[in-house]
């Protein structure tokens, strides 16, 4: 058994450090931990990726199934995002249906992908009103040391970039798989950046210990062209109007960094496959 002394993180101490621009793990306020992005990590999935932010470890698998469209969008495929806070990831996670944190995370990632227009749902239609592709994006939290939102959003986007759909032909009433696959057409690359507010300071990529001290946080998802496509304030604190605008500007900048890292990782992966 590990020696789990609950290190009582001293709020005053952390605030003092932050006021000097320092973090408990030595990082600057607006620096991420070492990030690694891996693709095709789950062979039975149609697309998959894992992301590590330091010890935080998230895996995402995409499964494509043929199903019926929703009645009010007969010409569109369906994107479904689900998050499991698997109990092996944290002593605080329990087996059972997703709790409110897992539901919030899944819904925010979902809004980012949907409003960031990662996939054109119309391209997922096979027979209007009858058969469409349903893309299940399953987020699997495997180790939790803070900032699950950004890691989950990044891993979800990476898994979609790595997704290959079976090619199908429509013959009469039947849908026949040709045995070929084609990569999903990715339209935009929205990146989630969560800003934590502790005292008056903003930090990115908080550790779990830092999250427990945070007043509140704002997740900002920005598109490739620097627009905002989704926001989510969480925790019980407040922001001033100025805070919000400051946070957005940081998020656009940091989003670019993460997006570049995603592109270079994907390129490395693609060339290693070729």
């Amino acid at each position: 058994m590990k020696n789990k002394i609950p290190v009582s993180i001293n709020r005053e101490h952390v605030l003092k450090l932050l006021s000097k621009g320092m973090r408990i793990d030595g990082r600057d306020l607006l620096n991420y931990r070492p990030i690694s992005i891996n693709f095709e990590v789950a062979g039975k999935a149609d697309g998959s990726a894992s992301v590590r932010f330091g010890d935080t470890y998230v895996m995402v698998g995409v499964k494509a199934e043929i199903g019926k469209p929703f009645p009010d969008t007969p010409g569109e495929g369906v994107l479904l995002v689900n998050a499991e806070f698997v109990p092996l990831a944290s002593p605080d996670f329990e087996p059972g249906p997703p709790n409110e944190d897992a539901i919030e995370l899944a819904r925010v990632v979902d809004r980012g992908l949907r409003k960031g227009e990662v996939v054109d749902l119309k391209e997922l239609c096979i027979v209007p009103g009858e058969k469409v592709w349903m893309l299940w994006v399953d987020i699997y939290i495997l180790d939790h040391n803070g900032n699950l939102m950004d890691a989950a959003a990044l891993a979800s986007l990476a898994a979609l970039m790595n997704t290959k759909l079976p090619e199908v032909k429509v013959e009469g009433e039947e849908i026949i798989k040709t045995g070929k696959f084609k990569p999903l057409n990715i339209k935009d690359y929205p990146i989630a950046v969560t800003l934590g507010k502790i005292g008056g300071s903003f930090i990115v990529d908080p550790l779990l210990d830092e999250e427990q001290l945070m007043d509140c946080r704002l997740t900002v998802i920005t598109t490739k062209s620097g627009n905002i496509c989704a926001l989510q304030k969480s925790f019980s604190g407040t922001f001033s109007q100025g805070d919000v605008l400051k946070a957005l500007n940081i998020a656009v900048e940091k989003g670019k960094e993460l997006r570049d890292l995603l592109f270079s990782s994907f390129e490395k992966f693609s060339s290693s496959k070729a």
Partner: protein
Amino acid sequence: MDEEIKLIDENGLRVDGRRFDELRPVRIEVGVLKNADGSALIVQGRTKILAAVYGPREIHPKHLSKPDRAVLRCRYHMAPFSVEDRKSPAPSRRETELSKVIREALEPAILLEKFPRTCIDVFVEVLEADGGTRCAGVTAASVALADAGIPMKDLVVGCAAGKVDGVVVVDLCDIEDKYGEVDVPVAYMPNKGLISLLQMDGILTMEEFEKALNLAIDGCKKIYEVQKAALKRKYDFTEKLKREADKSEE
């Protein structure tokens, strides 16, 4: 439904005839339920919501209690008949998320530390949903908390802004929410000038966002006046009753 829906007409007016910065009519009634410790009804356009507060009261199971403050619990729930297609009464993922963000919007305004080891329950029941239910829910819940006599640093007011047909507008109705481009729900503490709920759904430039945020906050400030008037109406009346009772006892 697939037809192009025009949300802003040639005069710049919206589907219900409002200008971009115009709220729907808002009506708030205080103390509308007998059993609840505090309650409020809000009617905003056709959106109709009841909020009720129970507490501070004992919490079960006890291990959920906190030694230094009250636990705030919140349930946002939609009546099965409140929407176009009947909604199953089992809580949806959307309701679970909104319960969380509403709770987090109210929490910074409440002096929870005054009631250690207890809980305060806030129930928000949407009876008719015509857009903006989470914001109206915050507005009503905050009045119900005041009606329950829970000490607060400030009222909390909710109001959304958004973008429809390319125009940034305030207080979206259902059809604008559904066919418009962006929804930005905001909750605001008017005296403190602080934002306690902020979400967004759809693409905005930085400039558009700033405009939307300003519109939403202006909306909150206007609705705040309605909150205050509603509370005053009830408590003036109560004061009056009390004074008369005192007099008659003399």
